[in-house]
């Protein structure tokens, strides 16, 4: 007779600290990755382009969640930091740098800019810091628009699709694999940070900065690290963005983008890596879903689309308010509850 364990029992700390602790988890991740790899072959290129946008949004959301959700430093300038990376990588790429170097370079430039705008965080908290990062947003937008010798100003900046070792990622499906790989690395990086010394220190700063200081966390250094790492990843997202869309203009990185990243982490779940992924997917798909709804209703009530289309922004806002009221911990909590439910199914006690 063979006995099976009715739960997870660890015999080493290392096993318990592992990322995927059960065979089932590994299997699920494997299946998910296999599905992702097969997807571009199964759906049309429009759907792949949406997927690409989701993946780029995932990097943006997960990096903002590191800064705002984990470290508690409110940022209204994240869209601009993505923009810095987008312009930085595009300029480097146009100057002849290989794609990987341009991507990392864009991230590094964004990290430096982010750290400079993170300096006020030593003194400012909460809403006051939010306003100072709003200033960062406005200043950077101004730079994108007026440093036209570098950024092309209002005319925008064309970029060639990425090339690695002579292989051009010039279709939606090809670049999908590249974006997927970079996104996976970024998500893994943030997950690792969240479960180690630095992530704990970030949360400590968020939850009680005075006691964080007394256990030896240098508040200023760690806040700057949070700003730096978050902006670096935002810059990487921007670099992918500019190389993917092949044309960037200042208005793409406006206040609205910053707000939609905030919406992603609120809807997904503050401080949660998986929540950032859900949130990014949700917010990116929301307009697509509305379009789908409008076009499917088009046959029944053609006049309706004229009413609904302008209401898109309103629906976006409404979703945010509903989430804040009914699920303030976001989709991450829903995910947790669903998992807990199925773990016990059919004996829910």
């Amino acid at each position: 007779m063979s006995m099976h364990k009715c739960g997870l029992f660890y015999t080493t700390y290392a096993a318990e600290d592992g990322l995927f602790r059960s065979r089932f988890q590994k299997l699920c991740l494997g299946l998910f990755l296999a599905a992702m790899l097969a997807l571009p072959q199964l759906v049309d290129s429009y759907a792949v382009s949406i997927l690409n946008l989701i993946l780029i949004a995932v990097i943006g959301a997960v990096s903002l969640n590191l800064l705002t959700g984990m470290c508690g430093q409110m940022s209204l300038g994240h869209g601009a930091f993505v923009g810095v990376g987008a312009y930085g990588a595009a300029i480097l790429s146009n100057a002849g740098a290989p794609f990987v170097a341009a991507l990392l370079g864009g991230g590094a430039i964004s990290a430096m800019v982010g750290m400079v705008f993170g300096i006020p965080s030593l003194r400012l908290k909460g809403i006051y810091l939010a306003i100072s990062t709003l200033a960062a947003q406005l200043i950077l937008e101004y730079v994108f628009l007026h440093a036209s010798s570098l950024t092309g100003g209002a005319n925008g900046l064309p970029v060639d699709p990425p090339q690695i070792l002579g292989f051009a990622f010039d279709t939606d499906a090809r670049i999908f694999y590249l974006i997927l790989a970079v996104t996976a690395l970024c998500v893994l990086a943030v997950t690792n940070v969240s479960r180690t010394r630095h992530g704990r220190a970030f949360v400590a700063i968020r939850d009680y900065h005075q006691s964080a200081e007394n256990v030896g966390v240098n508040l200023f250094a760690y806040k700057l690290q949070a700003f730096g790492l978050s902006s670096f990843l935002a810059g990487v997202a921007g670099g992918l963005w500019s190389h993917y869309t092949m044309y960037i203009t200042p208005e793409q990185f406006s206040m609205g983008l910053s707000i939609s990243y905030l919406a992603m982490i609120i809807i997904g779940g503050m401080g949660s890596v998986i929540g950032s992924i859900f949130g990014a997917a949700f917010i990116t798909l929301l307009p697509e879903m509305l379009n789908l709804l409008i076009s499917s209703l088009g046959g029944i009530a053609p006049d309706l689309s004229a009413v609904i289309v302008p209401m898109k922004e309103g629906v976006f806002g409404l979703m945010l308010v509903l989430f804040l009221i009914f699920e303030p911990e976001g989709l991450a909590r829903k995910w947790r509850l669903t998992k807990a439910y199925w773990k016990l199914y059919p004996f829910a006690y």
Partner: protein
Amino acid sequence: MNGSSPLLDVQEVSLTFKNVAALSRVTCRVDKGSITSLIGPNGAGKTSMLNCISGRYTPTKGKISMDGRELTGVPAHKRTGFGLARTFQNIALFRGLSVLDNLMVGRHSRLGYGLLASILYLGKARREETRHRRRVEEIIDFLNLSPYRHTIAGHLPYGVQKKVELGRALAAEPQLLLLDEPMAGMNLEETEDMARSILDINEEWGVTVFLVEHDMGVVMDISDHVIVLDFGRVLASGTPQAVQTNPKVVSAYLGDEDGLYKGR
């Protein structure tokens, strides 16, 4: 004084906020291996004193040294390196982290790896995490916190949170532990439990304890030395028995016949 060397030496420390004196020329010492208590009526400056030692406040005048090394001017986050840890009067836990992670943060300055190692989480970071986890588990066992190991700190009952806070301070393996009213708001059983933990920490682990507490029964029971503060001045200092019978202390706590303003 029993002649042993002072671990903490406070010399003529004054602290003023906009002409209001919170502490004036306080001189006291905490002997190595002792449990020294700081008592006094509300507003006497006890917490201000702790904040000066832990680095939240910088004394206006005077100097504080630990084990012969000057502490004044050292930023708060570097003081764990001197062997200093503290708890707070109001619970100051990291509410969003599990008990285990709270204690791991307590060891923050003992973990040596950098941001890049955090991101990659390979070799060094992994080994250190496991090594320090082992030490933290010992503290969890010692404080009977194992049932709550993975519980989010903010979800725990008050008495347990107080213990977690003690655990977090212990995780830094301090030489000197500053405890700001660890028994506040606890029932009799929890108070006895906490007192027992403090004695064990002192005797078994050899940690010197500097205690601020209002529960006189506990203070007189467990302290080797008691310092009484009143209006920011040291009123008396000595063994629990000596302090209890000191007429100045009695009048500070109970008031004297001639009213409040007599020459204090």
